[in-house]
């Protein structure tokens, strides 16, 4: 069939597009260094890692498959309540299995709701995702005898990880636990995005009409992607419940859906590292700047969104790429 040099060219192209770079290790090494160098920031760092994981899950469905949702917190919240309730109500305190349960239940819920909702598009889909997540939020409020509602779910106790690593007040154990999970999910998601399925998702994002015309089962593809994203979001929620040993119905709130959207857009969609970078910048800014002036902070976030949409639609990392290109540095 094809001449060998052509095949080689395709493989070279794909490897250059997909393969990990040595410099990426820098991110993870530095992330690992945080609790060693600055153990007192571990608790905050854990929150950042959880936001990173949550944003990663959104990137998979929004950045790769192009599905716009206003209700992604639904899956975060389901995961949080699954692992929280397992411990608080059923007395199951082992962390890894609790986390796995969060991911599985959330993925199952994602599969069901995705199969129902993803046949719709545009504002209809937007409203449906919003309605589903708000219904869950209200359910958690109404059913507070189970969930604790606004006051929160008390009595979550998480056993030491592997029975060895105790949860310390500084949060170093939690940080390590979160970082390990983040890395695993990142590697899995990266693998999915560079697979033929990942390619099909990009195709749906770029042109759903043509994807249908080449015979792609759109609903099936999207539901699978949505299930994976929901599972990862559920893991993030489960992690949130376990590391805080406490959750309120806030885990299902619209504000959380909006925040993760902002985080992802800030970093840049469809590149995984955008989710990580966006979460870091957003959380740091929220932590450091919001207190200076709450009003200005809200204005700042709004302005940021407007500026990003108008001036750098592919986020901070996209902006960085463009700056590099403008200076003639080799990108890729």
């Amino acid at each position, binding site marked *: *069939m*094809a*001449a060998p040099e*052509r*095949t080689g*060219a*395709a*493989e070279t*192209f*794909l*490897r250059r597009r*997909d*393969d990990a770079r040595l410099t990426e290790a820098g991110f993870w090494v530095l992330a690992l260094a945080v609790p060693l160098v600055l153990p007192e920031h571990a608790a905050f760092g854990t929150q950042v890692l959880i936001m990173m994981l949550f944003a990663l899950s959104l990137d998979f469905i929004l950045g790769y498959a192009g599905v716009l949702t206003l209700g992604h917190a639904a899956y975060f919240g389901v995961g949080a309540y699954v692992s929280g309730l397992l411990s608080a109500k059923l007395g199951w305190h082992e962390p890894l299995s609790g986390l796995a349960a969060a991911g599985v239940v959330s993925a199952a819920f994602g599969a069901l709701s995705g199969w129902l909702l993803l046949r719709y598009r545009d504002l209809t889909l937007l409203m449906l995702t919003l309605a589903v997540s708000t219904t869950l939020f209200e359910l958690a409020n109404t059913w507070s005898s189970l969930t604790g509602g606004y006051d929160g779910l008390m009595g979550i106790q998480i056993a030491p990880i592997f029975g060895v690593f105790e949860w310390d007040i500084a949060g170093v154990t939690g940080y390590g636990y979160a970082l390990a999970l983040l890395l695993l999910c990142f590697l899995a998601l990266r*693998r*999915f995005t*560079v*697979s*033929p*399925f*990942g*390619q*099909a998702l*990009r*195709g749906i*994002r*770029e*042109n759903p*009409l*043509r*994807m*249908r*015309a*080449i*015979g*792609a*089962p759109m609903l*099936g*593809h999207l539901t*699978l992607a949505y299930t994976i994203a929901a599972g990862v979001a559920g893991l993030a929620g489960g992690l949130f419940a376990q590391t805080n040993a406490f959750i309120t119905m806030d885990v299902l709130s619209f504000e959380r859906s909006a925040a993760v959207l902002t985080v992802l857009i800030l970093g840049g969609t469809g590149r995984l590292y955008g989710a990580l970078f966006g979460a870091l910048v957003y959380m740091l800014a929220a932590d450091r700047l919001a207190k200076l002036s709450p009003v200005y902070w809200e204005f700042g976030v709004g302005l940021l969104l407007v500026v990003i949409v108008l001036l750098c639609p592919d986020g901070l990392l996209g902006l960085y790429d463009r700056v590099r290109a403008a200076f003639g540095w080799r990108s890729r």
Partner: protein
Amino acid sequence: MTAAAAEPALLSTVDLSKNFGGLQVVRNVEFSLQRGARHALIGPNGAGKTTFVNLLTGALRPSGGRIAIAGAEATHLSEADRVERGLVRTFQINQLFRGLTVFENIALAVAQRRGMARTLWRKSASCAEINDEAMAIAADLHLDGIAFRRIRELPYGSQRLVEIAIALGLRPRILLMDEPAAGIPADERDLILGVVGRLDPDIAILIIEHDMDLVFRFAREITVLVGGAALTSGTPEEIAADPRVREVYLGSGKHG
């Protein structure tokens, strides 16, 4: 190439109709394509040509009548199922994955056809069967030099070729081409026509076209659609000589 008479038509319609509200856009069309057909569908603007194609592909549901693929009932099959049975189309207005490279565009179709679109855990780079085939198609269409450029960076003529290349990635048995040369300057048309001429002779091709020059160079059979109904069918010579066709085209003042 021997189209045995006993072999059922690859694609056929019986009494196919489509209404939008009170407006009947396609009326009772009887139509068939044999293996290896080189068929052209012509007609003035608003004759229902694109609607007819959308009925064939399953993008629209017919209001009445039946469609069969290789003799098997296909009226209610989904778009995806028809593609699986070898019915593939190209678009009059480019429908490409504009942010992706030429190679990626073709590879998407190849992966879909090979049933590998759900492969999650293998890296694309190691899927040699997809990559080889996609690159081979690119080479056939002389796209290999620009295989790793993004669609949106390419000139329009090259984009039209990718439109066809994606369809070829699906290994069609029946290929519906909606104005493949639309929007291309006259001097580049030969490139498209050359590509179409070199396609596998077993593929049944239906081409919808305004450009009579192209139609007469390509087609062995022509159907004229007017007001949603098939006015007549025949060889190019018969159609050229048919006074009703002349009247339709000259009368409505539309040509090419």
